[in-house]
């Protein structure tokens, strides 16, 4: 295919992405330098970098930032560890039974995030089974506090986001050559050493791939935190996306919200750039 035909085929899609992804990002930078509420949408007032200063001086922003970082630091390793463990165990089970387990494991992955969050929340409502078990074991009611909402968000993240690493690792284990495992068995390797010296090195590139994707997904978590804190604004349990949302839609400080969203984009580049470089290398080699 020559270059001209390529651009002909690409043009509709490219046009959509330029108009609705590249252009809005630039607009966001422009909006971040305006003072704008719902009243002066048509004639915003230029304020330069004042919005950025306001964001950096805002204690609530730093709270949201630190909770987002804590969330990533706890949720991502938890998801990857559980996903890997279950994938290795699932690999030991006979083919026929696997299907049923996989169907069950994939349920939280397929269901709409907001619906999944509502369903997890149901367990913790006053008549829910987990709330009941909590009363039986600890002897007090399950109440929503900053700590308990944060743990709820983490439990939900484990529930909803583990299927992704699980399935990727499981598919990766299927490509592990049998001879390698058999040879190590003859050499007398224990199961644990097989995991350590054969499986983990074999899946190394997948660990990096899943790790980067999971970090980016955890970074932009919104739906579940929104539902779990709805009408119960425990502000210290806010993540950056939610705080940006509230700043834009409830507080109506659109310039400041755009400044925050520009900051979040700049911060994510730390993870995104290595990820893109890796993909670029892969694709040019494959070509």
């Amino acid at each position, binding site marked *: 295919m020559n270059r001209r035909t390529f651009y002909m085929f*690409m043009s509709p899609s490219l046009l959509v992405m330029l108009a609705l992804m590249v252009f809005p990002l630039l607009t*966001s930078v422009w909006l971040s330098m305006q003072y704008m509420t719902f009243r002066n*949408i048509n004639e915003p007032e230029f304020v330069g970098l004042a919005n950025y200063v306001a964001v950096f001086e805002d204690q609530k922003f730093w709270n949201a930032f630190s909770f987002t970082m804590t969330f990533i630091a706890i949720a991502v390793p938890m998801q990857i560890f559980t996903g890997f463990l279950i994938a290795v165990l699932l690999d030991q089970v006979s083919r026929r039974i696997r299907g049923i387990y996989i169907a069950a494991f994939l349920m939280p992955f397929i269901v709409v995030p907001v*619906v999944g969050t509502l369903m997890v929340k*149901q367990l913790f409502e006053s008549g829910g089974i987990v709330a009941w078990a909590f009363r039986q074991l600890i002897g007090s009611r399950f109440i929503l506090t900053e700590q308990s909402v944060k743990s709820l968000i983490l439990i939900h993240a484990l529930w909803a986001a583990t299927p992704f690493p699980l399935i990727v690792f499981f598919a990766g284990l299927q490509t592990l050559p049998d001879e390698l495992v058999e040879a190590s068995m003859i050499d007398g390797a224990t199961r644990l050493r097989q995991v350590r010296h054969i499986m983990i090195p074999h899946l190394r590139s997948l660990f990096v791939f899943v790790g980067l994707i999971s970090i980016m997904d955890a970074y932009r978590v919104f739906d579940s935190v929104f539902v779990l804190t709805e009408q119960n604004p425990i502000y210290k349990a806010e993540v950056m996306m939610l705080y940006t949302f509230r700043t*834009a839609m409830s507080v109506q400080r659109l310039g400041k919200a755009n400044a925050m*969203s520009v900051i979040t984009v700049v911060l994510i580049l730390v993870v995104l750039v290595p990820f893109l470089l890796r993909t670029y290398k892969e694709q040019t080699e494959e070509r």
Partner: protein
Amino acid sequence: MKRIDNRYALGVIYLILTLYAAFSVIPFFWTTIQSFKTPRQANSRAPLFIFEPILDNYTDLWLKSIPDDPMLAAIILVAIFGLLVLVAINAKRFPLPRGFVYLAVLLAGFFVLVQIPEFIKTQTFYNYFLNTIIVTAGTICISISIGCLAGYGLARYSGIAGVIVLVAALGFRSLPGMSYILPYWWFGQRSGLYDTHILLIITLVAINQPFTIWMLRSFFMNIPKEIEESAMVDGANRLTAFISVIIPIMWPGIISTALFTLLLAYSDFLLVRILTQSNWTLTVAISKYAAGEDPGHITLAAAAAVSAAVPIIIVVFIFQGQLVKGLTSGAVKG
């Protein structure tokens, strides 16, 4: 591979897997149970597993008033949709191309759904359901049409520009949605498109386009070049070869991608929440049931959650083969 044959070790493995499976499905199981209870039963101190199931939560959610003859209405609806499903299953036997039959069935089904409020008094929840169908269907149609062209171009062009487009698209896709949605909101306010289906559809198309082209490209790469080359030797130009030779064998890939687009468009929450005032889709509507003071909100929220999950579960069940193919092709990247 030689598996573990120690019976105790195997027992432990099954135990762990079963516990994790239970962890995955208990919320579904519990919410479904709650949705058939009265608020009083749902709030009981000890969890209640044996009770007389009621449909009140679902009728409250969907209907303003129960039709005079609910049985008759139910039978008519089941008959109409049963007939449509029968036609779709037997599409091969009609003297028309299969695609036309499916399209006719889908349009007829949609027409019936739109007409229902004329005969049965429905709640606004039903309107949100219709909005979801319109937005999802619109997004799939546009997204797949332009995505197929781009995916094909990317699969066949070997220049560096192709790689750059792919990597850039992936980069844009990985940024938080908020960075696009706030400017969309502003465009929407200024252009008067705020709170319309059109704005939701074009923005959902744009946001999911990177994902669509990556996935379609990986399917197009599996189709040997020789197929369209032989058509082009016979005198067809590339576009005709693409439409008449490649697309017909691409259907499995297109359906797979459409399924993922459907899941993404149906699930989207943040974009719809910010860009609509009243024309919500189901996800935004049900988030309203998440919080509430009166004891009835738990059962109503449960019914809403189940109602929104059922269409997706049905679709996934019908197309499970395509779903697995899409997941294992490694094309699913965020």
